[in-house]
């Protein structure tokens, strides 16, 4: 955590102090009313993550991608989609992992391949992942993607909050820095909530009176401001309770001793034995 502490005011509202337990540290406020859909963020993300296939410049200048709503996939940690606001103007929204404060993906993961760092980033460790894709089913925002195309070493893919690539060096996330409109503000979560409230207060009529992600699914590190209802921007209406619940300990206890897979193997063995016996019997009959 000390590494993050060295971000010291370079680009945040105030010097970042190491996170206290339970108090989320870093966050991003996305003011969608400012976004012009230039996709510089997408490109920056693609460039900063060396294991993403390098996408040519021309793709990020191709406005025809806005004809359909895209989702993050194995090759893109962030996408910008186009919507229409009530005034008939285009409204753009950048999506990526929300870095939940109490992430459902982390709770669903059987082997601890997903963890939430105290600085706020939810990170994935491919060496631990067993490919069960429970995280994909658990995520309320349908964020994690899977390398279905990779036969031998498929990984779960999602935005890293630039944890190893940039935060570790005291830099701000690549997409935040690349955005020419400064749609995203990066800093301490509490201060960004205050900033969001101030913008709503100072610009009557411009914003929905809500910071999306302040409480949704127990709170997220990436939060949104918008000029129209969030559901219309594919930001789903969620309860304020964190999703991982009482089920988590039960589920984890069950899987701890590798019980279900053992059960499965036992069942398969049973079937095999049964079939063999039947084949033998019919062989004898003939």
């Amino acid at each position: 955590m000390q590494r993050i502490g060295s971000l010291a005011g370079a680009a945040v509202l105030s010097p970042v102090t190491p996170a206290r337990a339970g108090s989320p540290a870093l966050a991003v406020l996305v003011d969608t009313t400012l976004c012009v859909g230039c996709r510089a963020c997408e490109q920056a993300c693609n460039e900063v993550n060396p294991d993403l296939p390098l996408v040519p410049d021309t793709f990020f200048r191709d406005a025809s991608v806005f004809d359909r709503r895209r989702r993050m996939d194995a090759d893109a940690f962030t996408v910008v989609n186009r919507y229409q606001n009530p005034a008939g103007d285009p409204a753009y929204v950048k999506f990526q992992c929300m870095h939940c404060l109490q992430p459902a993906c982390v709770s669903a993961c059987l082997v601890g391949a997903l963890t939430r760092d105290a600085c706020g980033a939810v990170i994935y460790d491919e060496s631990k992942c067993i490919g069960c894709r429970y995280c994909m089913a658990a995520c309320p925002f349908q964020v994690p993607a899977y390398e279905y195309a990779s036969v031998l070493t498929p990984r779960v893919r999602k935005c890293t909050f630039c944890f190893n690539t940039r935060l570790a060096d005291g830099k701000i996330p690549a997409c935040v820095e690349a955005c020419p409109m400064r749609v995203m503000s990066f800093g301490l979560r509490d201060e960004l909530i205050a900033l969001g409230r101030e913008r709503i207060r100072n610009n009557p009529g411009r914003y929905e009176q809500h910071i999306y992600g302040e409480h949704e699914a127990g709170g997220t590190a990436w939060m949104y401001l918008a000029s129209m209802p969030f559901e219309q921007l594919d930001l789903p209406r969620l309860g304020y309770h964190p999703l991982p619940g009482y089920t988590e300990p039960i589920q984890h206890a069950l899987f701890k001793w590798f019980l279900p897979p053992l059960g499965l193997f036992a069942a398969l063995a049973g079937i095999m034995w049964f079939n063999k016996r039947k084949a033998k019997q019919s062989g004898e009959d003939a």
Partner: protein
Amino acid sequence: MRKLVAALIIVAGACAVLYAADPGRAAPDMPGACSADNRTQAGCILLSLGPAEYDHSRPQIVFDHERHVRELGERACADCHAKKTDGTLVFEFPKNTADTAAPDSLTKAWHDSCIGCHAERSNWGQDAGPVTCGECHARDRHSAFVYAPVLPSYYDPLRDTYHGECRNCHKKPALTAENAGELDWKKFYVHKGEVTEPQQLPSGFDYHRHDLHSRTLKDDCGLCHYLSPEKRRALDHAEKKPQCSDWLLEPDPQGIWREEDYAHSRCVNCHFTRKAAGEEKAGPLLCSGCHTHDARTPEQMKDVARSDCEQKEKILITSDNATALAAVPFDHAAHQLRTTSCQECHHKNMQACRECHTPTGDEKGEFVTLAQAYHREQVNRSCVGCHAEQKQKGECAGCHQQLPSTLESKSACTACHSGSLEALQRKRATVPPESLMPPGTKDSLHIGKLGQDYEKVDFKHLQIAKALAAASEKSLLAGHFHTDGMAMCAACHHYSPLEKGKPVPACRTCHDKKDILAAGRPDLLGAYHQQCLGCHQKMGGTEEKMPQTCEGCHARTGT
């Protein structure tokens, strides 16, 4: 093995035949007919399927009313709509709804009416409409159907999990008929998001149409407008003829009638009666006759007579309130020329605002005070609201989106509250922008390189100032409110004192060059982009004049 392949081929073939034969996929066979993807035409009625909690297992319907009338003829109207004893129609559908409160009874009534008629027609060998589900409930490309649980209030995410625990009680199908509504699990797992509100083309009853009607109907206002019973008695007693301001727009001043009910029952029934009586100018009977695509603009109706209500051309709006600001001179004639109908301001009747809106507000004016009636920013009937709406448009929006609202900038008050009618006569002198700038201001400024990817920008300061001044001069509204030339500088040079001939602080005084969010303000790079690009996008000019791409302003490095 061979058997298996043959079976697969047969199944695939059958699927292909079924798919091709599915009438639900058939393209609409009439040019311009309403379809799931074409819903904005006159007569296309988007039938929404009730409240969002209701089972939307099928998409909503885009109903082609126009086509039904065209193909079945007017005589068939009574097949769908109830007829009153006096021969007029009630424009509601379906006509036999026993209990519209229960969603299922309404669904049944709908299905019986539509499918019943289609089936009957096909029995008689006539051209019939569809009878299968997907033909009416056609999926459109706008429907991004998302299945999502709408969780009830008692659901506790800490205790319950989806599926398993919900289904313990919410079995499918529900056990008994009585609790079907309550316990069907589908109730909680619905298609979300695509219950789009019906989109109707406005009928545009503007000055032109009003003029047409008054000429055809020989100024018989009572055919469409109403007098309150008290008013009628008073007029009868005084043996006077009603004046404009006596007539009401709606039969029911309390406004329980929706405008469309009113319009359809009055307009269409009247057109019917006139046609039956053999009148030559009976009025349209088809949807598209009234709901035309292009609304006339005020400019197109410049020469159309505005109704004569003995209105004054210029009015001084005063207030009895001693603490109020100076009176407001109001050019009624100029405003009339810029509206499409009287109703844009006189929403209930043709009286002055203060007749209903009292200084403290009461029931008659729906508790909207007189001050609110003039100043409410959220409604476009009020002065401030309508002006705010004008500022959202094209050339105004570029600057005004960056500025605080009218009511927040105190200097704006005196622009209206000037106290005398003479203010309307005053012609504002044109101020060339260069005369306002401090001596030595360069015509063109260089904005240095801020990032690695793009070169510096040649910012044409004077050219932009001139273009803004010219835009302001073109508009009467802008000319009235931009009281001095400096107003045109305020959007870019925000938060700083502006004085003629005095230098203004540079952008970098407040916007840091490095720190992208110092003190909650965007850095210099962000500030430039937010302001330039934000304005260009709002004003929507050509790429050459108001670039919206990166290269429009600065070249890429290395090219």
